């Protein structure tokens, strides 16, 4: 329904496990009136950016929280924001790229290898993945042959999405350890920035937002694994909750852009595992949003998940890398050569391969300049001797 509703009245009840309100319900101060399902059913239509965006733009609890490349600014995107979803131009809906076969939406990251071997991602020929290459081919550049030489090692998105969240901000930092503070009257604190984004909430902690975020770059072969409750973590440094697989020595890997979402999360410092806290519920259930006690909340959550818990809660810094594929900028805004082929460029952190302009062999360079230097010294001395001997010769005459 939510995908096919064209009336815009179909709303899910937040705590309804996916169901809308069938009778009038209250959630805090918000009233949810029952959806006229008959009317919605009579007005089903094709999906659109709006219907898919109902969920995907607001993932993580708000506009642009989870993704830096999928937010409500795409509803009215111009060409500079997204060449494909440009409302005044190509005006693609999500399903122009995420083609569907019997409701199986194309495009999965989690377990498929990258599409290196295929020029066209035909349905089911590689799971069902979509890629820029499906429409543009591997050699889309007509004017600059060198760019086509890059597509085997660099994903299109890397050059064509120069920055994330170019219109609406995206959440970059979420510190749960700061949650649970109240003002002097014992009321919850909600602080907003000048754009109306929440930067502190008693229930959720501290957050930071940013626009025009430069993505992180990693070698990626299409496989992402996640830290599970059963995995031991190393709490001496930030925990990478998503592990991006791939390396430059793997020919199936390419350099992809990612949004790096950082934050602080509760964990079990004795068992060294991540934990699932219980957030939602009534007083007495351990729910954090009712009792504001992490110990009770984690205990309730871990019990429900059937996972071991030591009884201690700490906070650990975490990173979550998420691949980026939307907000493709026009060709003129694509990365210029100098963004990579320099020292301290965008790919500075990625090593193990030779990139002209950034990498060089110190021994060779030193030797080379030494040889040139010796040649210069040689001619300088020779020249000086010529000048001296000539003036001496003249004097003798």
């Amino acid at each position, binding site marked *: 329904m939510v995908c096919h509703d064209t009336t815009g009245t179909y709303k899910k009840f937040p705590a309804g496990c996916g169901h809308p309100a069938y009778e009038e319900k209250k959630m805090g101060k918000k009233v949810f009136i029952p959806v006229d399902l008959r009317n919605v059913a009579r007005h089903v239509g094709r999906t659109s950016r709006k219907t898919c965006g109902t969920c995907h733009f607001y993932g993580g609890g708000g506009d642009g929280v989870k993704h830096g490349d999928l937010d409500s600014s795409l509803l009215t995107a111009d060409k500079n924001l997204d060449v494909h979803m440009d409302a005044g131009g190509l005006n693609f809906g999500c399903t122009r790229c995420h083609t569907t076969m019997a409701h199986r939406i194309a495009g999965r990251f989690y377990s498929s290898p990258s599409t290196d071997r295929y020029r066209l991602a035909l349905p089911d020929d590689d799971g069902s993945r979509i890629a820029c290459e499906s429409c543009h081919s591997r050699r889309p550049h007509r004017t*600059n042959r*060198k760019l086509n*030489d890059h597509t*085997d090692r660099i994903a299109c998105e890397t050059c064509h999405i120069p920055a994330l969240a170019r219109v609406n901000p995206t959440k970059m930092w979420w510190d749960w350890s700061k949650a649970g503070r109240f003002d002097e009257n014992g009321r919850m604190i909600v602080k907003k920035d000048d754009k109306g984004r929440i930067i502190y909430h008693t229930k959720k902690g501290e957050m930071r937002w940013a626009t025009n975020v430069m993505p992180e770059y990693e070698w990626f072969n299409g496989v992402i694994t996640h830290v599970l409750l059963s995995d031991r973590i190393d709490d001496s440094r930030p925990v990478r909750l998503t592990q991006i697989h791939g390396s430059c020595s793997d020919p199936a890997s390419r350099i992809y852009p990612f949004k790096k979402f950082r934050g602080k999360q509760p964990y079990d410092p004795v068992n060294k595992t991540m934990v699932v806290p219980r957030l939602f519920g009534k007083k007495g259930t351990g729910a954090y949003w009712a009792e504001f006690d992490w110990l009770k909340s984690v205990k309730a959550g871990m019990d429900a998940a059937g996972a071991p818990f030591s009884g201690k809660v700490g906070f650990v810094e975490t990173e979550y890398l998420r691949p980026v594929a939307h907000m493709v900028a026009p060709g003129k805004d694509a990365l*210029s*050569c*100098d963004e990579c*082929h*320099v*020292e301290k460029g965008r790919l500075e952190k990625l090593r193990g*391969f*030779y990139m*002209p*302009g*950034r*990498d*060089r*062999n110190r021994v*060779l*360079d030193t*030797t*080379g*300049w030494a*040889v*040139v230097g010796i*040649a*210069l010294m*040689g*001619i300088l001395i*020779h*020249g000086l*001797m*010529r000048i001296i*001997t*000539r003036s001496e*010769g003249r004097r003798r005459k």
Partner: protein
Amino acid sequence: MKEKIYLYTGFERFWHWTQAMLITGLLVTGFEIHGTVDLMDFGTAVKYHEMLAWGLTGLTVFAIFWHFTTGEWKQYRPTLEKMGDMVCYYTGGLFRGAPPPVKKTPEKKLNPLQRITYFILKVLLFPFQLLSGFLYMYYNSLPAWGIDISLETLGLLHTAGAFAFLAFMVVHVYLSTTGETVTSHLRAMITGWESVETGRQ
């Protein structure tokens, strides 16, 4: 006694100066790509480097053709004859104002030191640099051609070649001032005519 002789034909002068410009351009854009100098952006440097490389290749093909049809290639045959005299001249006689031990004639334009240098330049350095350069340019097609060489190795070899060219040019430009007067070699390369000593004192 002095005499003016016509040493360099029109083609040779054209070849020399075009080559000089191309190689200078390749050095500048090459060291830009390498990250040593910063005069233009990387993309522009790559574009011009490729254009200049094609220019130099075309010119070289032309020059090879010319040398073989005219038989002028024989000028570069290395010889040991008077090699020692030339070394003595550059390290001694030159300072005293002695005449060069080898007389330039249109049939023998190059002294033994020049011969060996240009021979190495043409038979080793040029092919080396053109080959490593073209492998670099077509790096993406190498696997399809069954060539297994890393970009790093190619970059290293091509940079080493560039240093050799640069060192050569430094010395070459300097030695052009060791003629009858400081500019007489240079003038000969422009006009074709060089004044040389006739007979030995």
